[in-house]
């Protein structure tokens, strides 16, 4: 039945387009800007931090040396007792964490189990400064999509060299075959009288740690 429908829909489209000449189109003119900010490292980091904060993510700065310490502090602040991490979390990130039950991502870590876990800690694929967006693509240091979805607290580590200015800069760097989650601030709704409320189904708290050589 659907095979039939496929042919019919395609035939209807071709009939509908009877007025359109079959000539090749000239290449699309993309007159828009490749970026809206200057693309030096300090500016990109500052713009990203500002936009993340505006959407009520919590922004933290750290040097690579300070990173474990900052992660430890964020977990203590959130009173985290159980933490989900990807199997390939960079070594050392957890060196300042104590007294927390660790769960490593894998098929055994089901949604039901994750539902009882306090926090998740991951890296990211890249971040987009202009829009305040962090992109996860289940690549290195990120784990499966479910990992950063079910727990109520997500700590995401962004290296300075992962920050790009804009979507036109980001798209060519991303692999469409990987499942992607673009995150711009914590879960939110404005469905009730347009009052913004943070946190409906996704993590209600998003901590971003920006890692660079010289944090301000």
């Amino acid at each position: 039945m659907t095979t039939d429908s496929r042919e019919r829909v395609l035939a209807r489209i071709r009939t509908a387009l009877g007025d359109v000449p079959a000539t090749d189109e000239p290449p699309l003119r993309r007159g828009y800007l490749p970026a809206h900010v200057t693309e030096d490292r300090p500016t990109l980091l500052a713009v990203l931090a500002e936009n993340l904060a505006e959407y009520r993510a919590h922004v933290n700065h750290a040097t690579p040396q300070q990173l474990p310490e900052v992660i430890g502090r964020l977990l203590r602040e959130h009173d985290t007792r159980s933490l989900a991490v990807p199997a390939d979390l960079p070594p050392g990130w957890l060196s300042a964490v104590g007294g927390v039950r660790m769960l490593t991502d894998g098929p055994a870590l089901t949604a039901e189990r994750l539902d009882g876990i306090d926090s998740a800690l991951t890296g990211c694929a890249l971040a987009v400064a202009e829009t305040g967006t962090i992109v996860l693509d289940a690549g290195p240091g990120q784990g499966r999509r479910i990992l950063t979805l079910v727990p109520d607290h997500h700590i995401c580590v962004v290296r300075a060299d992962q920050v790009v200015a804009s979507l036109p800069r980001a798209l060519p760097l991303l692999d469409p075959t990987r499942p992607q989650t673009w995150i711009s601030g914590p879960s939110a709704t404005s469905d009730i009288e347009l009052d913004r409320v943070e946190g409906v189904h996704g993590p209600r708290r998003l901590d971003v740690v920006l890692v660079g050589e010289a944090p301000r």
Partner: protein
Amino acid sequence: MSGTYLGMPAFPKAAAVSTQNAQLRANLTHATHTIRDKRAKAVAELADWAELRQAGKEIKDRTLRRLDHYLLQAEAAVTAAGGTVHWAQAAAEANRIVADLVKAKGEREVVKVKSMATQEIGLNEALAAEGITAYETDLAELIVQLGDDLPSHILVPAIHRNRGEIRDIFREAMSRWGRPAPEGLTDSPAELAEAARLHLREKFLRAKVAVSGANFLVAETGSLVVVESEGNGRMCLTLPETLISVVGIEKVVPTWRDLEVFLQLLPRSSTAERMNPYTSIWTGTTRGDGPSDFHLVLLDNGRTDTLADEVGRQALRCIRCSACLNVCPVYERAGGHAYGSPYPGPIGAILTPQLRGLTSEVDASLPYASTLCGACYEVCPVAIDIPEVLVHLREQVAEHGTGHRAERAAIKAATWLLDHPAAYRTALRAAARTRRLQPRRLPLPGPAKAWSDTRDLPTMPEQSFRDWWKTRGQENTP
């Protein structure tokens, strides 16, 4: 859900009822003005908005001109990535496909992400008739579903409900659908959101099948894109074993790179954000991560009819941002329900009659649910010339001949507008601001005589629409 748009009264009658509802009107005015102002700021941030808009329009037009090619490309890419593609000519067929897939899994319930396409085809009702319960998971859709109600706005479907009403609906209905509302629930939005979180979490954890729509379908890669705010979309797209996405054939875009245009245009036009909190993109299935079974249902349901109309086909560029609703003086007065379909406001006035045909009274009256002020065109991120299509559709209604019941409904709609001077004043102010954007000449050949002898639209405000309407209207009234 017992609510239905079928058998709805024609626009003027439904609008007359909603304009009398002071609560609804106050909610709508507050909401539309708030979003409208925020949108203007978000758009003003981008120096290249005009160029982005032009690119968005061009990409969609190019796609539509070779729609068969891009759909076949998308089908091949989705299939190669492990998905299964189905084609549906009409609503009933799409509903059948989804119901059969759910039943084949031995399931009796599905979780749903807000989707215009599934509302359009009445999927929830069709599934219910097969003994399958569809749980809406978007907060606003949940409010609508628990209230046994109909959505009234594309972006904020429960815009017609205030917090007190929402609390009452939660207290009264949640226990019938699953986890009851917490004891002592107040009307604070944070508490209401928390109640929804708890109510839906058990459903997310239990669900084996999810149904979604998609904002975009990338032909070259087979990737689907869903933008959202709450995380309910991520839950539905990630947790269940089976995912079924019902997607209108006009949602396809040619290349991965094209997303850089639409993901700039859509959030700013829609929620007035630089980016919405969550965007999910997936391509077929990924081993060990997310659903292991993915089905894409490509839906025609009147879109090829729309495509056949050289003037009207531009409506298929729509990315459902809802910016046109928020600037429309008629929507503000009439409310979303008056439009008798899931697509309210200016886009509904041109899309619904094209998808469904002009035969029913409500559909024939829709092209008249406008003052032609042009504000919708100005804000549209893909530059759909809504006034142009409205006038074009009015001509088609007129062609049915005097005395036709559809035409009588149309004239009543026009009269309703003339009886609402407040809507006019707003419209004229908007028109004065957007004058350079007004369509001056309608590029329409054919039987336009009933509505316009010269095919020139008057420039505003030298001659107001009201005056124009009176003269033109009389020519047509025997």
